């Protein structure tokens, strides 16, 4: 363990991280947001899932520093009287969970398809790549929106709300896997003809072992680079779906459904219900995107473009 740590500390990755203030700032904000959102049950002053602590008389209170604000709710309350700060923390946690699992899901599908396609080639490759091409020709957001609309009608609104988190993971995962498939296939094609693969074949290892134990580790760098950007993308997709009412229900808020909830009250002047979750979403996505840019530049200087 300590050996790995010292090797990491001497690595180029860590070296360029130390020298880039933007990367350090983004990484700190990212870790901070993830930690406070997962610690929400401890950190948050109220529990938005616990209906007994919610008083409808507290609804639509502005932030504490404004005239009508209440000191107990420093970012104000939403329309159901939930403390906005606590609800945002729980909402961010939901968004992060969906984002990360959706990326794991799409990476898994994409890597398996890309590996098989690149390693075996021929008919299997042509068939899988044709499917990838077809899905690529339709924007991921349309795929996600239509898939969740279909799921919502098929399951019925109530059942859909119960199953919202796993369904959203599947929907967002299904709409984005082709990106992984293409990336992995491209690097597998580069690795396949190298000598270590030849050597593995000569000593009689089976295909599965060569694919997953020998080739896969060498294709992981581009996978890592797109994964950071994909997490941001998945969080954005989740917010968009929830905003359309096709994602997380109001009772189990994510950032998107909170913005959706607040949108109806923007006209009556309750801007804070929309603004604060919106700012949190933008900050979270922005730091991930900047980290992704930084990682891409460090790991693949050839790709660098202003």
């Amino acid at each position, binding site marked *: 363990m300590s050996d790995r740590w010292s090797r990491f500390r001497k690595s180029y990755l860590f070296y360029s991280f130390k020298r880039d203030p933007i990367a350090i700032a983004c990484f700190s904000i990212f870790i901070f947001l993830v930690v406070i959102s997962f610690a929400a049950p401890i950190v948050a002053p109220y529990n938005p899932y616990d209906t007994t602590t919610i008083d409808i008389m507290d609804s639509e209170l502005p932030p504490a520093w404004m005239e009508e604000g209440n000191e107990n709710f420093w970012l104000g309350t939403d329309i159901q009287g939930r403390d906005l700060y606590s609800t945002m923390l729980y909402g961010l946690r939901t968004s992060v969970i969906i984002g990360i699992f959706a990326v794991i899901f799409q990476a898994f599908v994409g890597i398996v398809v890309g590996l098989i396609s690149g390693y075996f080639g021929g008919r299997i490759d042509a068939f899988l790549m*044709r499917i990838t*091409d*077809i899905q690529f*020709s*339709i*924007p991921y*957001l*349309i795929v996600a*929106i*239509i898939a969740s*609309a*279909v799921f*919502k*009608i*098929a399951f019925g609104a109530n059942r859909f709300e119960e199953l919202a988190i796993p369904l959203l993971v599947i929907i967002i995962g299904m709409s984005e896997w082709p990106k992984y498939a293409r990336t992995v296939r491209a690097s597998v094609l580069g690795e396949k003809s190298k000598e270590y693969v030849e050597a593995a074949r000569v000593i009689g290892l089976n295909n599965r072992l060569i694919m997953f134990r020998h080739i896969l580790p060498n294709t992981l760098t581009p996978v890592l680079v797109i994964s950071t950007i994909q997490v*941001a993308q998945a969080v*954005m997709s989740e*917010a*968009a779906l929830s*905003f*359309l*009412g*096709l994602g997380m229900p109001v009772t189990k808020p994510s950032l998107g459904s909170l*913005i959706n909830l607040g*949108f109806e009250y*923007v*006209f009556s*002047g309750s*801007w804070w219900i*929309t603004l604060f979750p*919106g700012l949190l*979403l*933008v900050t979270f*996505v*922005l730091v991930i*995107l*900047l980290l992704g840019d930084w990682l891409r530049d460090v790991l693949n200087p050839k790709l660098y*473009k*202003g």
Partner: protein
Amino acid sequence: MFAFTIRRIIQAILVMLVISFIGFAVQYSIGDPVRDMVGIRVSAAEREALREKLGLNDSFWIQYSRFVRNATRGDLGTSYFYSKPALQVILQKAPATLELVFVTAMIIVLVSLPVGIYTAINPKKLFSKITMGISTVGVSFPVFLTAIGLIYLFAVELHWLPSYGRGATVNIGGWETGFLTKDGLLHLILPSIALSSIMLPLFIRLIRAEMMEVLETEYIKYAWAKGLSRRRVWLLHAFKNTLLPVVTVFGVEIGILFAFTILTETVFQWQGMGFMFYEAVERSDTALLVAYLVVIGVIFVLINTLVDILYGLINPMVRIAGTK
């Protein structure tokens, strides 16, 4: 070139078959045309007779081939809510979406070209740095948040612009246009700005990057050495060669704009296809949903095929690489 075009068209047909198959599978598993057609008071026997008459008891594949045959004739089923052919409902809503996308595309072209070129030529100027900063942050703003912000600022606080709907429209031969009235044009401003805000950062960066790359090439150095005027080198020699990748990306991104119209139209209650889709989901109007899926599929396939063929015309390398 002919073979290349044929190959693209065959692929387009293949994609349409896959989309129609997905559409039909959705219709088959969750839609109920009998419910859509009759009331609650109709007896079970009568329903069964109607099912038989409509061919709903046939096998999946027979029904699918019937679906495809009807679709090629323009019959995409009947909307449950509107009690009208689904395609007719969509075509009624299409002008609103097309006008919104058109104005948005104009904004993107008119803003990103000059700004992209300027930031490429003067990368050190303050304006360029601010623009690049804004476009980095802009990418992480979801379109619905921008839209709500615009509504709050310009409609709720300042009362300058209308916040929802299309305003007064004029009907010209079945095409409801908002271009001809002042009210209609005012209603277009906020939605089109919101929609263009997702693509603008991307295009400014793309044009800037391409232009900077071209400015480094040998023939531009040669043009400088010849002593041509700055304007001539920038606008005639360099700019022309940045256009090729920009045109292709533009074609694809127009397709993606259609996806984002669902979000934008929902926020502004813009009476287009996107808002219609949103309402169809709320009303469980399966036939309309499937029809939307097919229509939007046709739009994407058309755009993609046209862009590919256009690219093949401009860039011979694509044609040859595709042959193997």
